[in-house]
């Protein structure tokens, strides 16, 4: 009997403990914390939190005309010829690569071909903007930009959680200014409030607290389009960084960097409560000084836009997203432009010096972006409809790097590793590969793509690096398992077999394989050559495999054009 009592008593104690642990766990993960309630109140009171309704295509017409005018005027002043517009398939491939990270499927092409030609690009764009592939692909691209690719501190930094949250942000087309404010003012735990991971990504270099130095560097590059990193250690004595008033620039000072960093010292780590707001608490020993001095939080230009009162990071966020902070708007546009083209408008996506004139298209787009409620999808629509985006990458005249630099032709840009993986996987399937595909297909796509990207060489957060191809990459493409599996005449899965079994004749085979792999029809010479290859062999399935291998190994597949 006493044993029974002991067991009952122990069970009761353990039950209480389990209940307590369960409650604590629920408290942390379910958003019941004080910060979560505050966040929710703020959201419901803020009309900006509502998803933006899709803009009607016609609404962007005036903006597109203005951009085209800037483009034309710029090319005329440079004395550069411009190429003709590209055909709709080339433009749609660019859109797919930019928004979902791979080329079009044959299924998508066939659906678009049912429409009148002038409608195809617009319909394809709208399809992509509503496609979960877009939300997730951009979430990964923006994660690289916002928090990098490093693993960060175990437990406290959850990059995957951050990426999924960003996908939700893109799915509802949240206003860009609201996104920026959420990142800069984040409070709580990274599991509960994913935006906090913008801060916890830097915990590994500052002993478990937000690292003001890294956050200042990240903020200046990402949200301001300025590289002021060198000011961390010294004043700018080379004339590289000019700050202050855009019309009356001054030399960048070491104080500029550390005053910006000071805002982030108000992000205090508070145990299980995560990041909490506190006071600015920052001192620094400047170069050639004997002692550390207290550093006040301030901004490197347009100080009149910085609110005098409020939580420090809230003040910074208000300043960054102020409609009159055109530099911050230019930084946002610069990033979206680079994602669309695969390369920045100027020399670098995050280097838009205050004292140097930027391309008139960038200014026009920035003004348009602010005046239309920081609407990212509208910005994408305007860029996608512009002549600069739609112009051909070939021309009758001799194309020089100057033509590419000025966007007189669409620039040739090397695909990123995951774009190559996505493109070859998509090319091997007739239908679109997405979350509606069979689980088996999704599994082999995911594992195959991950292994491929690892071997191909992920370029990390260096988003717009356009290095030439390497020997490793060519070996992987020519002899690697993934491409071999995708090219294989597999009746269950692959384009090669489906085309071989169902195409009307060899000419149809060649056309279809070209559409799947390169998203274009073959030229007459190409068609004749490969039709002959298929017709002159006893093993036509091998000839189709060979054709697909050739196209997947081409420059044309590996480059955006």
């Amino acid at each position: 009997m006493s044993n029974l009592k002991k067991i009952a008593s122990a069970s009761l104690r353990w039950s209480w403990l389990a209940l307590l642990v369960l409650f604590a766990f629920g408290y942390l993960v379910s958003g019941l914390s004080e910060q979560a309630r505050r966040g929710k109140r703020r959201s419901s009171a803020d009309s900006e939190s509502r998803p933006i309704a899709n803009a009607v295509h016609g609404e962007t017409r005036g903006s597109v005309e203005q951009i085209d005018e800037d483009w034309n005027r710029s090319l005329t002043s440079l004395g550069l010829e411009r190429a003709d517009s590209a055909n709709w398939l080339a433009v749609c491939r660019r859109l797919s690569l930019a928004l979902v990270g791979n080329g079009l499927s044959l299924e998508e092409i066939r659906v678009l071909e049912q429409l009148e030609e002038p409608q195809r690009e617009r319909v394809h764009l709208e399809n992509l903007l509503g496609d979960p592939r877009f939300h997730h692909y951009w979430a990964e691209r923006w994660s690289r930009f916002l928090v990098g690719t490093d693993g960060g501190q175990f437990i406290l930094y959850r990059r995957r959680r951050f990426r999924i949250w960003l996908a939700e942000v893109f799915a509802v087309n949240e206003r860009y200014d609201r996104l920026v404010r959420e990142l800069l003012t984040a409070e709580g735990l990274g599991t509960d409030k994913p935006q906090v991971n913008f801060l916890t990504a830097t915990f590994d270099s500052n002993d478990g607290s937000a690292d003001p130095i890294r956050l200042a560097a990240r903020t200046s590059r990402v949200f301001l389009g300025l590289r002021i990193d060198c000011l961390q250690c010294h004043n700018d004595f080379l004339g590289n960084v000019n700050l202050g008033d855009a019309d009356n620039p001054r030399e960048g000072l070491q104080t500029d960097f550390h005053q910006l960093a000071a805002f982030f010292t108000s992000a205090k780590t508070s145990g299980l409560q995560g990041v909490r707001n506190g006071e600015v608490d920052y001192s620094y020993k400047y170069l050639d000084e004997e002692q550390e001095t207290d550093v006040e939080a301030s901004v490197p230009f347009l100080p009149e836009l910085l609110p005098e009162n409020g939580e420090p990071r809230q003040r910074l966020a208000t300043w960054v997203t102020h409609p009159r902070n055109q530099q911050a708007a230019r930084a946002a546009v610069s990033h979206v432009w680079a994602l669309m083209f695969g390369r920045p408008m100027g020399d670098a996506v995050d280097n838009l010096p205050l004292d140097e004139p930027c391309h008139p298209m960038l200014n026009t787009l920035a003004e348009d972006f602010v005046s239309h409620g920081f609407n990212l999808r509208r910005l994408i629509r305007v860029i996608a409809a512009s002549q600069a985006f739609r112009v051909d990458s070939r021309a009758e005249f001799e194309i020089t790097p100057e033509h590419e630099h000025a966007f007189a032709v669409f620039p040739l840009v090397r695909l990123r590793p995951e774009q190559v993986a996505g493109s070859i996987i998509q090319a091997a399937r007739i239908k679109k590969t997405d979350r509606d595909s069979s689980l088996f297909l999704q599994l082999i796509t995911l594992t195959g793509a991950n292994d491929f990207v690892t071997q191909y060489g992920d370029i990390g957060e260096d988003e717009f690096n356009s290095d030439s191809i390497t020997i490793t990459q060519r070996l992987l493409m020519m002899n690697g398992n993934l491409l071999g599996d995708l090219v294989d005449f597999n009746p269950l899965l692959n384009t090669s077999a489906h085309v071989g079994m169902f195409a009307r004749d060899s000419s149809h085979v060649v056309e279809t394989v070209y559409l799947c792999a390169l998203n274009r029809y073959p030229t007459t010479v190409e068609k004749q050559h490969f039709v002959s290859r298929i017709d002159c062999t006893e093993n036509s399935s091998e000839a189709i495999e060979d054709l697909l291998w050739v196209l997947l190994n081409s420059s044309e597949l590996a480059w955006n054009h």
Partner: protein
Amino acid sequence: MAILDQSNSSRLCDVQSHLSRRTLLGAGAGGLMMSAIARRLAWADDQGVTDPARPKSVILLWLEGGPSQLETFDPHPGGVYGGDTATIGTSVKGLDIADLLPRTAEQMHLASLVRSVTSKEGDHERAVYNIKTGYRPDPTLKHPSLGAVLCHADQAGADIPRHISIVPGNSPGRGGYLGAAYDAFKIYDPARPVPDIRRSVAEARFDQRVTDLYDVVESEFRRGRLKQVEKTRTLHQTATNAALNMMSSEQLDAFDVSVEPEEVLESFGDTAFGRGALAASRLIEVGARCVEVTLGGWDSHLTNHSLQSSACEKLDPALAALLKRLEERDLLDSTLVVCGGEFGRTPGINPAEGRDHWPHGFSTLLAGCGIRKGAVHGATAANPKLNSDDPLADIVDPVTVADLHATVLTSLGVDYQEELETPVGRPMKRCEGKPIQSILDA
């Protein structure tokens, strides 16, 4: 067909001659025909000499996870923090190392030890970046690792990649701002074939694919595009030719350690790391400039002595055999061996009998290529005060990671102070440290 008549036959001839040369040289000949590289390696074995004009190369034995200095090259037995490790005498009079490295101890007359390396990075990812590049992580720039810097400074070529990472772990050498062309070529256990080097279809069919690619598809892609698009932008055909050359190169045999005598294989240890170290020495002989071989298992937060002992069992034969082989083959004058990890481990032993991360005084071994033999630079205290405000107080002659890089580059004959330019025009020295003169030959 007309398009075939317009083909660039000379270019294709080059490629195809490479494609067929390997066949002639005995691939599949069942060992009856000895390849040129095998003959060369055998000849060098007999003669004990190699080309005197050989460019300088580096083999990095990368101990990933943070090897304990106290269980490897800087033991303090009997002290407060010595743990269970005893010392063993070495071939250098007065120099003791941990008894977990008995075979290495016999080769210490070939090497120098730096026992006072310090850094400010105690996190694996950041510390690895720091010690592989010589720079602390910078969100605005990716620095090149040592192998990339060397290959960039001296472009002497080989059919096989010049920068190679064997069993690459989490952090193979990267080209950083020098570009992906300087990334390490990754291979895994040399017991397995080099990845993606073998055609998946018959040779004639493969050659036909390449011909169609070049003559039909690539020529169409170039039409109307950027002037000299291949030469000035894509380098697609150039890289493809290089890959084809590699597929048919005699130098590929250097990856294959199975041709080595059984006793040689045994001397390096029956592990991927041992085979990697052996492959590294073969690759250096045929023109590779930097080969890094990774050995994990050093992150001993729990049961430190057991984990470090286990890792040392793999390190010891490989390191000792590598030094001996390089010396015997007259390669040590032109080959630098660097052996170390991203940081050391705490003097204090934690409640789980582990040691944690410790960047305030750890050890790196260097040998060959102008490094003094049998020298030791710096020291750590046997009974350190562990003042967190001044962690370097316990270190004699501390050096930084950047100093280590300056020493390595100097040894390799690379101007460590030369300024390179990043893609955005930012001037950047190869290295910001100063060479450790006490371990460099006068």
